[in-house]
């Protein structure tokens, strides 16, 4: 990508993306899941998606990752239209997607398998680096179904990082973890993204997690997902976060604001479903 292009185009552009499911059968009307969503994401930016359950966050994330095609609109990554999944768009799934026939280390190493930019020796070094980073150094030789669910999720994250994607797409990756591990991994993740200047889109239900991680957060409506509010968190909280961030006053403000938004969405969802 040339410098001239970089200044003109954002790193990632989501333009008027819409998604409808179904409609192939006549008795089944199509369901609109994503409705005209647009956003620009800069290089190294950490984006968080928030919204009521079932609103279409996973669907939008999958469209960005190329795993689902948009019904209309487009996603452009570094000036190139997204047409399918590849190594530039790393995905961490909601469910455990690590491979049971491989050990923890082999799973992480699988992330480097199709990289052509590095040699055999580096692949192993990188795998070991990420193994330690997610705190699984002493579990290297365990099969992944011999470790806990939270550990499996860390394996999946490490595997994706080892594949060196341009952008990290994460669908509630810490949903199944206990509070301590969760906080530890949140800090690790921010550190990794900062050091490697990696952009990320992170889906979560947890308001504190959202505010702590995000440079910018997007609040979506109930289905079909539209952007209700874009919350610029970096400008209030600053780009640097650590364990004390959560005690600052601006963190409280932001958290309460986002929580109110979430509650209002949930209430609207209930009202509309009880009618």
């Amino acid at each position: 990508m040339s410098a001239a292009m970089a200044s003109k185009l954002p790193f990632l552009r989501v333009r008027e993306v819409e998604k409808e499911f179904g409609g192939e059968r006549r008795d089944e009307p199509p369901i609109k899941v994503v409705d005209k969503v647009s956003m620009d994401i800069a290089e190294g930016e950490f984006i968080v998606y928030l919204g009521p359950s079932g609103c279409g966050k996973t669907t939008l994330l999958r469209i960005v990752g190329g795993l689902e095609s948009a019904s209309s609109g487009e996603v452009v990554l570094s000036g190139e239209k997204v047409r399918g999944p590849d190594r530039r768009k790393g995905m961490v799934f909601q469910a455990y997607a690590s491979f049971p026939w491989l050990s923890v280390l082999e799973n992480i190493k699988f992330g480097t398998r199709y990289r052509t930019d590095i040699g055999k020796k580096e692949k192993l070094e990188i795998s070991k680096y990420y193994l330690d980073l997610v705190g699984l150094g002493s579990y290297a030789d365990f099969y992944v179904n011999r470790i806990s669910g939270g550990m499996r999720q860390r394996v999946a994250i490490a595997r994706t990082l080892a594949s060196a994607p341009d952008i990290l797409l994460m669908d509630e990756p810490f949903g199944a973890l206990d509070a301590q591990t969760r906080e530890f991994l949140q800090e690790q993740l921010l550190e990794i993204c900062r050091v490697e200047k990696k952009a990320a889109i992170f889906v979560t239900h947890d308001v504190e997690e959202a505010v702590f991680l995000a440079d910018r957060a997007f609040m979506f409506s109930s289905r079909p997902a539209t952007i209700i509010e874009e919350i610029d968190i970096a400008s209030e909280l600053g780009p640097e976060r650590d364990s004390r961030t959560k005690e600052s006053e601006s963190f409280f403000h932001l958290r309460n604001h986002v929580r109110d938004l979430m509650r209002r969405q949930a209430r609207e969802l209930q009202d509309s479903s009880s009618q």
Partner: protein
Amino acid sequence: MVDATGGAAARRRQLLASLVAFRGKSNARANFALGIAAFALFIAVWYSIVLTGTVPERFLPLPGTVVQTMLRLLTEAHFLNDIWVSVARVWGAFLLSALFAVPIGIWMSNYRLVAALLEPIVDFIRYLPVPALVPLLIIWFGIGEASKIAVLWMGTFFQLVLLVTDDAKRIPREFVESGFTLGAKPNQITRDILLPAMLPSLVDNLRITLGWCWTWIIVAEIVAAKSGIGHYIWSMRRFLKTPEVMSGILVIGIIGLLTDQAIRAWHRRHFRYL
């Protein structure tokens, strides 16, 4: 001392309770003992039926006689040759069947076009009873080895293809999608993710298919053959040599059991992560 025996009694009670409990925990040693006990009971009933004269020995020889006959036959070259011939036919046809079924089955799961083209044919042929095909296959292939292989292949290939397709389809979608986002191309996903992920159930299905081969080989050998265990059993029937007939059947059972156990043991050792 009193405590220890009390503990043993309690453990025995607990074991009994878990054996009769609905979906209770299984205990390897108890299972083994029960299996042996049931087998012993079976033999005892057999003996009593013959010794009380309920069934004449001409039709139902004593278990001891059958075992003796079998042991004698196992030292005779013609019988060993029959075993060898049948084993070779079964394995030859089985491997040939697997050689086609595994790639085609995976292909059917990977590409809708292939599935749409092949599924109706496969489903149709799968429902044709194999014995009904034997006369036709003999017309086509004669009574030599080719027709035996053809019968076994027809009897297993079409079933196996669908089993393989199912195995491949059952792989979690996230596995395949992870592969794509890690940079794998479709054929790399098939080789590096699909195959290892489905291998345990594939091996199970191959083991079951091998069992069917033994059913069809006997059918084929009884209808038209000059050798093989099926042919041996059928020719002994003519002289009402019941112990020989039963020995032949017993040998098939033993071979089947040993193969099955060997594959299971390999499965356990190879797929330790399960």
